[in-house]
């Protein structure tokens, strides 16, 4: 286990948010950049935010070069993460399939597959016959929007979400990182456009650099330092069924009817629903949103019709106008943000943490994340990934 120390008076770097991205940032700062006087400050418990609330899907089949590089950097780190952290991530490359239900889907996906292949990714087109072989329980014909094909990335898959937080926490703690739980950062203190530290429920803590990785609450914290971020916070829901025998051995996503599903090692179906249609910080979400997803799931997989759902929950995601993240410095010196992951940040955890640690340590972006800056919302160089984001927003 990691220790739970009282905070020191000051640190070289304070990371706000003890989820996978934050703990990973601490790990890479200590391991690759030799900065070990770090505190990770978490309002609840480690990985209790969106790290513990997502549907654990990992893939890198994004359209634009910038995104493909960022997300595939992450997939490559995932491939060795269990070994690197000596902690079982239960990373399973069972493949991720994105279904096409209409002519537009087919064109969009084939375009994306071509773009992926130019970027060296392993995405491929599979027709209905191949889909039936991979997922025999799927109803491809007798439904309102028939399944016409799919984009398939075999290197995609799932991992155990808690393990990511715990693995990074253990190894960064071993290198001297303080992990402070149940401590809320109330505001970020600045002086003359330079960061001074953070006010927390355990008092003021001085810091040379503050890195905010607080997902849905990032923009609220940024505001306390006088920084405005182009983010909107909304609840995103997921649910799991009662456990059953193995019936589906890949991840199947469908943007058009909004249903995605995979089966956990315990046998539960893990189902992702959509975001609520309005800003909110309430971690539950509306019932009509799950109803819509479950309706689509039952139509696609009629054998799930009589299953019982065990749990439902919500997490607060920070949505960016172009559905791409912000991993950037800002106008306040020593203040950094890693946010805007919206509905799909889990897959990027190691890659995001890795390049964010570089950004914080060197005070300049890594070449992989330099396009994911804040300036794009004034110079117009957006990275529009609404097509590749699984959840419509």
């Amino acid at each position, binding site marked *: 286990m990691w220790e739970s120390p009282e905070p020191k008076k000051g640190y070289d770097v304070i990371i706000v948010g003890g989820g996978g991205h934050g703990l990973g940032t601490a790990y890479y700062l200590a391991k690759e950049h030799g900065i070990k006087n770090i505190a990770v400050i978490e*309002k*609840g*418990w480690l990985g*209790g*935010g969106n790290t*513990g609330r997502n549907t654990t899907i990992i893939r890198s089949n994004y359209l634009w070069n910038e995104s493909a590089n960022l997300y595939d950097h992450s997939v490559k780190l995932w491939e060795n993460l269990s070994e690197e952290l000596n902690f079982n991530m239960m990373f399973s490359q069972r493949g991720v399939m994105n279904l096409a239900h209409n002519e537009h889907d087919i064109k969009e996906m084939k375009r994306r597959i071509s773009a992926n292949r130019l970027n060296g990714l392993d995405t491929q087109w599979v027709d209905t016959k191949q889909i039936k072989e991979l997922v025999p329980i799927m109803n491809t014909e007798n439904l309102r929007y028939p399944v016409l094909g799919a984009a398939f990335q075999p290197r995609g898959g799932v991992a155990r979400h808690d393990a990511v937080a715990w693995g990074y926490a253990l190894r960064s703690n071993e290198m001297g990182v303080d992990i402070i739980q*149940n401590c*809320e*950062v*109330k*505001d970020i203190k600045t002086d003359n456009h330079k960061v001074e530290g953070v006010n927390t429920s355990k008092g003021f803590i001085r810091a040379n650099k503050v890195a905010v990785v*607080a997902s849905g*609450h990032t*923009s*609220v*914290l940024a*505001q*306390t330092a006088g920084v*405005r*971020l*182009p*983010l*909107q*916070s909304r609840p995103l829901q997921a649910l799991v069924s009662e456990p059953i025998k193995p019936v589906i051995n890949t991840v199947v996503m469908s943007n058009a009817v909004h249903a995605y599903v995979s089966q956990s090692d315990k046998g539960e179906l893990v189902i992702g629903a959509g975001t609520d*249609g*309005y*800003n*909110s*910080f*309430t*971690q*539950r979400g*509306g*019932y*009509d949103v799950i109803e819509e997803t479950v309706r689509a799931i039952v139509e696609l997989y009629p054998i799930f019709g009589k299953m019982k759902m065990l749990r439902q929950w*919500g997490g607060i995601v920070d949505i960016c*106008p172009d559905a791409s993240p912000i991993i950037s410095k800002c106008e306040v010196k020593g203040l950094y943000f890693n946010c805007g992951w919206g509905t799909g940040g889990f897959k990027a955890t190691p890659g995001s943490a890795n390049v964010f640690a570089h950004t914080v340590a060197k005070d300049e972006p890594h070449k992989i994340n330099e396009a994911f800056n804040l300036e794009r*919302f*004034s*110079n*117009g160089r957006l990275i529009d990934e609404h097509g590749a984001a699984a959840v419509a927003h």
Partner: protein
Amino acid sequence: MILINCPYCGEREQSEFTNGGEAHVIRPKDPDALNDKDWGQYVFYRSNPKGIFYERWVHSHGCRKWFNAVRDTSTDTILKIYKLTDNKPDISEFQNTLESPSGEPAVGSGNFAVKK
């Protein structure tokens, strides 16, 4: 799901409505005079407070009329609903239940990961 009291039709389920984002955002009078940064602020940046939020709704599956609401985004409690022709209610009319900007309300947050 929350219930919304449409000023024209009465109380209905939220799924009948569509949210229109932040209310009272005014389009700059002379866009050509703005630099890229200020124009970007108008196009991409909206307030995202935890707590009291002024927002627009349209009753899409009803009268299809637009109206404004003041809602506490930390609990989803609707504090006031008013027509587009009404004046913006002053923020001092409403009580903020949060002790810090990213704090949790005593009830209604749905967040069990944080000790209150």
